[in-house]
């Protein structure tokens, strides 16, 4: 950062013009000098020095006491000059941090990337949008050789970067489980021990884990304190909350998880989400889950992917396009 010199003769002429005429245009030009000086890192002392020199050029007979007062002013302004310098350094540091975070966010996207399964007889839609750069929500599909699909939806409590790092740990813990180990209750119990041992006490994870069997049209699932999803019954056009009991991961080492199973009928939908969906707020008003379901219903004629994207757009608009929390919505529709 090299401090440039202010153009003394230009400054002198302007000052002279203003002293003689009090002309507005000279003041306007002074404002421009101020802006340019900041852009070019010209220090405050430099500006005051230029002013003193210009004044001495214009008035060679400048009284000595005025000259002294200028030296005094220079001294008084020193701390402001330093503060400005510090501000500029901080701004640069902030830009560096921002770019490092965006590198980390891209890395996280790669590490946690997952492929939406293509299953015959079903239509699956997924949307997951972080509130900030790093996503604390997590969803993952595991394709087993027998044709079943493991589906994880999770939310790390504690936001931002630590939450995102934690998610990577969870993913690798899950991948290290033996492949015959795929019952939702067993998986959550094992994961709970991993999280309990390895994660900071104020951080914990809510997770819904499902084993989806497309051939048999069944889904078995367990929940570790995760926001309940919904089941849509096409037959009578109603939604039912998918309740599953279980404490969040990482709070007690002895947690056990109940496993539930249900059959999926033609035209039915399974809706999995994180609390970013149900905790949406419009100004001071909360969006009730009935409203979320209404919106889902209104788009239910669309394909699963178009459906989730439209629901997301709807709530994004309601919240003035500023998400308070990460937003993840997965919908599995059984073809009619």
């Amino acid at each position, binding site marked *: 950062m090299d401090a440039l010199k202010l153009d003394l003769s230009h400054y002198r002429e302007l000052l002279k013009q203003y002293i003689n005429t009090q002309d507005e245009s000279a003041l306007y030009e002074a404002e421009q000098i101020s802006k340019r000086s900041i852009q070019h890192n010209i220090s405050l002392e430099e500006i005051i020095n230029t002013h003193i020199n210009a004044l001495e050029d214009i008035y060679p007979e400048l009284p000595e006491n005025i000259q002294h007062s200028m030296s005094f002013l220079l001294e008084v302004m020193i701390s402001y000059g330093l503060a400005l310098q510090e501000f500029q350094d901080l701004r640069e540091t902030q830009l560096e941090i921002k770019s490092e975070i965006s590198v980390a966010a891209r890395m996280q996207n790669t590490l946690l990337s997952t492929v939406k399964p293509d299953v015959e007889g079903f239509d699956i839609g997924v949307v997951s949008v972080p509130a900030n750069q790093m996503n604390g929500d997590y969803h993952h599909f595991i394709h087993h050789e027998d044709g079943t699909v493991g589906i994880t939806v999770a*939310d790390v*409590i*504690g*936001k931002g970067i630590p939450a995102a790092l934690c998610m990577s740990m969870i993913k690798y813990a899950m991948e290290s489980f033996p492949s015959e180990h795929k019952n939702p209750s067993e998986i959550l119990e094992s994961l709970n021990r991993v999280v309990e041992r390895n994660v900071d*006490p*104020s*951080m*914990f994870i*809510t997770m819904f884990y499902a084993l989806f069997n497309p051939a048999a049209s069944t889904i078995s699932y367990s929940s*570790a*304190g*995760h*926001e*309940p999803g919904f089941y849509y019954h096409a037959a009578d056009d109603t939604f039912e909350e998918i309740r599953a*009991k*279980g*404490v*969040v991961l990482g*709070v*007690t080492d002895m947690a056990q998880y109940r496993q539930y199973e249900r059959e999926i009928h033609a035209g039915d939908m399974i809706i999995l989400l994180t*609390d970013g969906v149900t*905790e949406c707020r419009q100004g001071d008003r*909360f969006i009730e889950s009935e409203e979320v379901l209404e919106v889902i219903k209104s788009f239910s004629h669309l394909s699963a992917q178009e459906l989730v994207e439209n629901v997301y757009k709807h709530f994004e608009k309601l919240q003035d396009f500023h998400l*308070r*929390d990460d937003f993840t919505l997965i919908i599995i529709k059984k073809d009619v």
Partner: protein
Amino acid sequence: MNLTVDVQENEGKSVVLLAGEIDAYTAPKLKEALLSLTEKEGNKVEVNLEQVNYMDSTGLGVFVSGLKSTKENNSELKLVQLQDRVYRLFEITGLIDVIDVDKTVQGGY
């Protein structure tokens, strides 16, 4: 978005009166106040949430830290007078089974 934390010492227990919203911005303040109480060996801490109309999952994190701290310091933590929306969070997350949460009763061990 604000939270006031008022601590009163009352007959051998610490009563924490909260008012406002508990979210990522206010949670650090609550955490500091809560842990300083649960870290006192054998202390009984009662948190009154009657005036808390919003809490997000960050708030749950604070109470989980508080719970862990009670185990290390042989102290007790109890949450009382929760509004429905806040209570629902403890219910969904299964935390009502591990933290002493009393939705209705006013004070008292």
